[in-house]
């Protein structure tokens, strides 16, 4: 789960990280009002989960009320890389002489957190990482001890942060690690961390991505989740607790286990079809989840046929079959042809339970995928 900039900034500011004065607006009038209060220049920033907002026209710097009104009017309601903008953050602009990058993330190769500092902030840090990796100082953290103060200092000195602000930047980095840990974050970043002419450090942006698996420990963060900002179908998947990715083909795919579902996508492609989605109903899937999964895939108008591929381990074939019967029983007419392939635990029982007036049953994966691709072609 990714927090919006304004949410992350609130969390960071509460922890003592200096941030610019700012306020959230959902209407143009509100935005102008906030801009007047804060004093110009201010930035008007679209609050959507999209990288490169600035280049895409989602951030505008304005000098007076008229410009603020224009900017808010342009940004509120705009479609930014597929995301509808319904909130802007109005934020006092900061005069800066340097822009740093500071971040904490999990280094999966090492299996431990890593703190990163660079004096090349304010630009695409991924580019810096790819082209000039030594421009980012890295310090691995022992998660049992947490970040020692010396490690923050070391990263800051190694990165070549100017001495006048080194202590303050180290302190921000220490706080950032605490935020990362206390919020079960996968990433906590400030880019840019601005250094003003007076050698003050200010977080001009804030990223806090939280581990979905740990949200149960953070009801306050879970509440911040902003369904509206996501693709409607993805939001629905979220509600149902599915791993779902919408794609642009017409073959709906439901399966259990990320590897098998990905393989099913790959096979659809291999046999000449185009996947409409990735949908993993996960382990231990019960009838209700199957109902929900079919509901999701049928909700996608692009879908012309559905392949339902279950290889049972923790998921039992009989449960899946009941779910499929139940889900399809809710329709007067089956909206799209469904091909089912069951294997593994209780698969035979499942195949027996399946109502073959409602679905096509196939025994092999390759057969099921080929049949579905055919159906999808027929429907077009």
């Amino acid at each position, binding site marked *: 789960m990714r927090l919006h900039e304004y949410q992350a900034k609130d969390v960071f500011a509460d922890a003592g990280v200096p941030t610019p004065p700012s306020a959230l607006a959902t209407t143009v009038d509100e935005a102008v009002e906030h801009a007047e209060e804060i004093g110009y220049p201010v930035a008007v920033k679209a609050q959507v989960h999209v990288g490169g907002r600035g280049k895409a026209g989602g951030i505008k710097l304005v000098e007076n009320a008229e410009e603020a009104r224009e900017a808010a009017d342009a940004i509120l309601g705009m479609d930014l890389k597929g995301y509808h903008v319904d909130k802007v953050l109005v934020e006092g602009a900061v005069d800066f002489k340097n822009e740093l990058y500071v971040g904490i993330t*999990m280094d*999966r*190769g090492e*299996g*431990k*957190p890593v703190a990163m500092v660079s004096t090349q902030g304010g630009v695409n840090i*991924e580019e810096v990482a*790819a082209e000039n990796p030594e421009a980012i100082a890295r310090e691995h953290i*022992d*998660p*049992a001890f947490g970040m020692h103060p010396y490690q923050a200092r070391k990263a800051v000195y190694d990165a070549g942060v100017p001495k006048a602000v080194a202590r303050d930047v180290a302190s921000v980095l220490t706080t950032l690690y605490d935020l990362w*840990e206390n919020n*079960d974050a*996968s990433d906590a970043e400030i880019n840019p961390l601005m250094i003003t002419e007076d050698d003050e450090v200010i977080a001009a942006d804030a990223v806090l991505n939280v*581990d979905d*698996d*740990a949200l*149960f*420990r953070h009801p306050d963060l879970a509440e911040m989740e902003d369904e509206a900002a996501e693709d409607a179908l993805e939001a629905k998947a979220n509600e149902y607790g599915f*791993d779902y*990715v919408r*794609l642009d083909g017409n073959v709906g795919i439901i*399966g*259990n*286990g*990320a*590897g*098998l*579902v*990905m*393989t099913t*996508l*790959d*096979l*659809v*492609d*291999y046999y000449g079809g185009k*996947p409409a989605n*990735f949908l*993993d109903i*996960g*382990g*231990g899937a019960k009838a209700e989840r199957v109902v929900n999964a079919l509901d999701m895939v049928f909700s996608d108008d692009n879908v012309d046929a559905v392949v339902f591929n*279950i*290889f*049972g*381990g*923790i998921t039992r074939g009989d449960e899946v079959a009941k779910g499929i019967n139940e889900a399809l029983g809710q329709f007067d007419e089956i909206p799209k042809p469904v091909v089912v392939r069951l*294997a*593994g*635990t209780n*698969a035979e029982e499942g195949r027996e339970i399946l109502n073959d007036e409602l679905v096509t049953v196939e025994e092999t*994966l*390759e057969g099921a995928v080929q049949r579905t691709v055919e159906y999808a072609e027929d429907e077009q």
Partner: protein
Amino acid sequence: MSILVDEDTRVVVQGITGGEGKFHTEQMIEYGTNVVAGTSPGKGGQEVAGVPVYDTVEEAVEAEDADASVVFVPPAFAADAIFEALDTDLDLVVAITEGIPTQDMAKVNKRLDEVDTRLQGPNCPGIITPGESKLGILPGNIFSEGNVGLVSRSGTLTYQVVDSLTQRGIGQTTAIGIGGDPIIGTSFIDALELFENDPDTDAVVMCGEIGGEDEEEAAAYIAEHMDTPVAGFIAGRTAPPGKRMGHAGAIVSGSGTGTAASKIDALNDAGVPVGDTPEEVADDVEDLL
């Protein structure tokens, strides 16, 4: 022979009184696994599927002289259960649980450096030595005894490939699902090394997927250290960059590494054929044997 588990392995089921724990304990016993104890705090003294339940793993291990445990504890408590198991002298802990917070696993990962016990998983289907023992949720009926080792990041994909092998009469020494999470106890390389040292394993199938660098590192290991031939499969060829697909691991960064192409190239460079479909993988294994 086999790796890690065999008919002598004495198994503790952690979380045996839960729904999944109980169901799979029955399944494991039915398969022939020597399940000697279960644990569930506060339920010590009960029995599940004829197996004695203890309050703590230490009690269970000491009373029943166990070698391995399999963890069915819900994600919020699973890391604690793993720590508890690592605090005993078990040889192997197999964590099935899906959805353990990554920061919890980073701490577990540190503990693993301090102990001799091996962790497999989490978020994995377990391990099976066909005809002898299975620890986890793998459907035993699709496996058969033989001379091919299998290691996979994905659960159900493993079953798919094994099913293809078994239907051709190609049996397995041991099949191990290492799990799809960003932080896992046993890596591809760990498993490959074990198979390389198992005289009965004549070929190995390695099923990877997009995300991370583990397959690339495994390819380098194979090129340098393995005589046993390896066949590969990589899921996620059609996954668009930047999208997370299920597993925390299955996300393509788009920066050139971690993609299916990069993994397939690395494996091919190491002399590993990579099939386009699970059936092709079975074809490759037939060729290698």
